[in-house]
């Protein structure tokens, strides 16, 4: 079994957190990776600066689905500033293959192997770049 398909990753894949529609959502944003056929929609409910609730729907590979599931767990309840920090942290993490100094990534750490697999980076990144898009849309409203 390739290292990437760790127990943690498979757990998020088989038992995705916060999967499903979000009634009363503030907005939803679709992200797609046409080369893979991954399509993930994030559903977000904001109250002012705070992301009260976030869920996801869509289809994709285990990496993009698990990454989406992890994203919802981490960002739930965070402020926009915190979310933006997390997006940057995630980018650095994926590029370097290890957590930025002093940051506890939690389950996300299971994606460390991605840095060595350029073809799969986009799968892990998809929900995060979708989140970035969502924030800029929300702030634009």
């Amino acid at each position, binding site marked *: 079994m*390739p290292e*990437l*398909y760790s127990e943690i990753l498979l757990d998020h894949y088989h038992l995705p957190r916060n999967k499903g529609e979000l009634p009363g959502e503030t907005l939803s944003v679709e992200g797609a990776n046409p080369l*893979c056929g*991954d*399509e993930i929609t994030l559903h977000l409910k904001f109250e002012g600066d705070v992301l009260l609730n976030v869920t996801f729907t869509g*289809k994709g590979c285990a*990496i993009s689905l698990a990454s989406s599931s992890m994203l919802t767990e981490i960002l739930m309840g965070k402020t926009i500033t915190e979310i933006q920090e997390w997006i940057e942290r995630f980018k650095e993490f994926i590029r370097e293959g290890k957590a930025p100094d002093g940051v506890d990534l939690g389950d996300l750490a299971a994606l460390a192997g991605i840095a060595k697999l350029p073809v799969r980076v986009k799968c892990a990144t998809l929900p995060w770049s979708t989140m970035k898009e969502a924030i800029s849309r929300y702030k634009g409203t």
Partner: protein
Amino acid sequence: MKSWEEIRQDFPILNVKINGKPLIYLDSAASSQKPVQVLQSYCGFCEQRYANVHRGIHTLGESATSDYEAARETVAKFVHAPTKDGLIFTRGTTESINLVARSYGHKFIKHGQAIVLTPMEHHANLIPWQLVAKAVGAELRFWPMQEDGTLDFEKGRKLLDNSVAMLCFTHISNVLGTVNPVREMIELAHQVGAKVLVDGAQAVPHMPVDLTELDADFYAFSGHKMLGPTGIGVLWGRPEVLNDMDPFLTGGEMIREVWLDHATWNEIPYKFEAGTPAIAEAVSMAAAARYLTEIGMERVHEHGRGLAKQAYARLSEIEDLTVYGPSEERGALATFNIEGIHPHDIAAILDGDGVAIRAGHHCAQPLMRWLGVAATARASFYIYNSESDIDVLVEAIRTTKKVLQHA
């Protein structure tokens, strides 16, 4: 006669361990591995006979030129081309098709005429024609397929009327494995006065191809899929047609006389080979052709067909697994999906067992849409594969299912 086991030993890469397991390389439809004979030809040429071609009066210039031209002859013979003058060395199938689209298509296809393609084309044999159609105002028509991924002849025949300028299609589908009836299709097209381009990228490596008998106007293929190097491929074109076409790339070698403000062109095939060609690559593509000829293309074909048939049968037995394309008479590959599992995950988990397959759209996004999927997994075979590779594949797929299928 070399045994399959002896043949395997010609491929150094098969000794590489993948995640501690022996490599089972099932991705030859994307690109094949190279035998020592080809690598030795490459290095031997560079170490003993190398120089630029065509203009050198010194000994190395002459040896390189004669090796390069001998390569043209060897490759022309390999596909039984009626003449070697029509054999143009390109970077690969993609460049070959672009050459025809630009130098023939833009010049000879007229507003209101039609270009007929099939829905199973590789992007390389689709996008160049989209651009020609747009530029000259031609119409694109698609020869319909039947449920099993073979072409519907009744419907296709009706598309071929006098407005058709060109029919372009793949000899063997790189996804479905469909082997198209090239001879018949060319005859139909010629009856309405259309020119025909055949994409032979998946055919030339795997079966005897006889360009004299097929009677195509253009035929394209790549070196890297037939045990040869990257960076080299072929366009064969009917000399009369090539003579009428405009040049493609321009620069050295393709010219006859050059003034500051205009130039005249060299004869074919040189007219279409601007600049320093991929000399060492052509020489070792010829070595690959010789290697395959020594094994015998009939035998190569039999072997690939056998593995494809077996793979189709064995994979079809697996629950929730769909194999695409016709069950009989197929190219050396099997493309499939497993219910509820993304092909990328299949490929990644198989890699853990040393099994290299491809997953994605295989440069055939419209065909993916036709199949109603975003992507597929594909196992493809060549002379270094054996039945035991299929055993490992099937076993690895069972593991994948266990890990990834929802309970």
